[in-house]
């Protein structure tokens, strides 16, 4: 339970980090908060030759809102508000920010499911995304909200949309010589409904399954936009495309269940030590329906509040 030997490289600038990463013989791994990397090293599941400690790159530990019209997220145009999160921002830092920012409520809710306060104090947002555990909450949320990952290397800067970022178990679009430097997370509009549900054996454990939803409803109460993400099932978090069938429709509980079942029927479920495939299938249907219902309720309530404010 001790790491194997590695070179330890503490960098003071981003350029230094990128130049070390560019040396392919070194096979260096980036050390940010270490809350996923250190367990892997302690158990010797990975034995990298070198670690690049980026904790002194204070410029990567900032977050704030930006208005932009990103390519690849045209569904949210014209201008959408994004939360720009430096890769070194601690999960706890984002949690405290999100507690005070109503539009980041979904981010706050999901973060309270991430590990424990003691690991969120040290664990980073960028680290969780780069680690890409398929049952982790932050990757699920990044995909569900939509956004962009920004990577840098000595070759320059590159952007990848959330939908293309996660590629397989613990595998992302980040190239070996690249470093994830910041991420942009779409913030739901003030009248958008949101929901997050997770099922796991013990609080703080990885999710058996988790689902997140954002939904916009029109003044005629029909669904205008809806997105549901599911984590813990496949090799990456995934979007349940079938829920888009609800767009333009009035809300009907039975219909929601049918759409959730249609989404689930397209997916593959496997047995593992935690649950049988039929159990997971049932759980997925319940979670998808319940985030849809909860997000619709939330959107309806927010629309009501909005009306009161105007009055």
């Amino acid at each position: 339970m001790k790491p194997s030997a590695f070179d330890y490289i503490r960098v003071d600038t981003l350029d230094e980090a990128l130049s070390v990463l560019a040396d392919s013989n070194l096979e260096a791994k980036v050390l940010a908060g270490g809350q996923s990397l250190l367990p892997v090293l302690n158990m010797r599941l990975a034995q990298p030759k070198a670690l690049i400690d980026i904790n002194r790159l204070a410029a990567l530990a900032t977050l704030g809102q930006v208005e932009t019209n990103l390519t690849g997220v045209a569904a949210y145009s014209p201008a959408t508000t994004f939360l720009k999160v430096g890769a070194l921002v601690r999960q706890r830092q984002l949690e405290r920010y999100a507690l005070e920012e109503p539009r980041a409520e979904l981010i706050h809710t999901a973060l309270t499911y991430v590990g424990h306060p003691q690991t969120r104090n040290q664990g980073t947002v960028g680290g969780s995304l780069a680690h890409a555990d398929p049952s982790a909450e932050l990757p699920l949320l990044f995909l569900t909200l939509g956004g962009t990952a920004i990577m840098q290397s000595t070759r320059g800067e590159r952007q990848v949309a959330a939908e293309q970022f996660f590629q397989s178990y613990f595998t992302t679009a980040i190239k070996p010589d690249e470093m994830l430097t910041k991420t942009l997370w779409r913030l739901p509009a003030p009248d958008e409904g949101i929901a997050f549900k997770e099922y796991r054996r013990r609080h703080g454990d990885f999710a058996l399954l988790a689902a997140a939803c954002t939904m916009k409803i029109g003044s005629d109460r029909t669904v205008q936009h809806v997105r549901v993400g599911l984590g813990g099932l496949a090799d990456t978090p995934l979007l349940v495309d079938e829920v888009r069938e609800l767009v333009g429709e009035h809300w009907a509980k039975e219909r929601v269940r049918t759409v959730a079942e249609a989404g689930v029927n397209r997916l593959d479920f496997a047995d593992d030590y935690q649950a049988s495939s039929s159990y997971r299938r049932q759980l997925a249907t319940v979670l998808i329906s319940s985030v849809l219902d909860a997000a619709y309720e939330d959107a309806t309530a927010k629309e009501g509040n909005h009306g009161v404010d105007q009055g």
Partner: protein
Amino acid sequence: MEWIKADTLTPVTLHVNGRQYRTAIEPRMLLSDFLRQECGLTGTHVGCEHGVCGACTVLVSGEAVRSCLMLAVSVTDAEITTIEGLAKHPDFPAVYQAFTENHALQCGFCTPGIVASAMAEVVGRKKKDKEIVDVLSGHLCRCTGYHGILSALRELT
């Protein structure tokens, strides 16, 4: 940039409980091992060594963290506080009393970590019950069933 080679012993200085500890270590040494082996501060207990049990929790710059998930070389510019340091804190007698009166420990293996979390997150702060449970969820206790610890923590908010 500072580049420390894998197998070399490199002198580092860590600030622990208001004292400076200067010793030569390998870069792979965990903070938990540094505290126990280099500083002789064996109040920090090591349970699982992969961040699950919380027994090794200490304060780094005032925040409760897992010392088994940090490299000693990476925290040379932080102030580290272990249970030995916390025991001298003015808030400690109240914590000691609350833990005693509520039967918040049996074997005591997990207790130093829980006390570290409690003093960083709970003691003297207005915390909702859910938040107290969230803090305690970061620790495994195999004896008490947690109810005694929860009662103690509730008294301390």
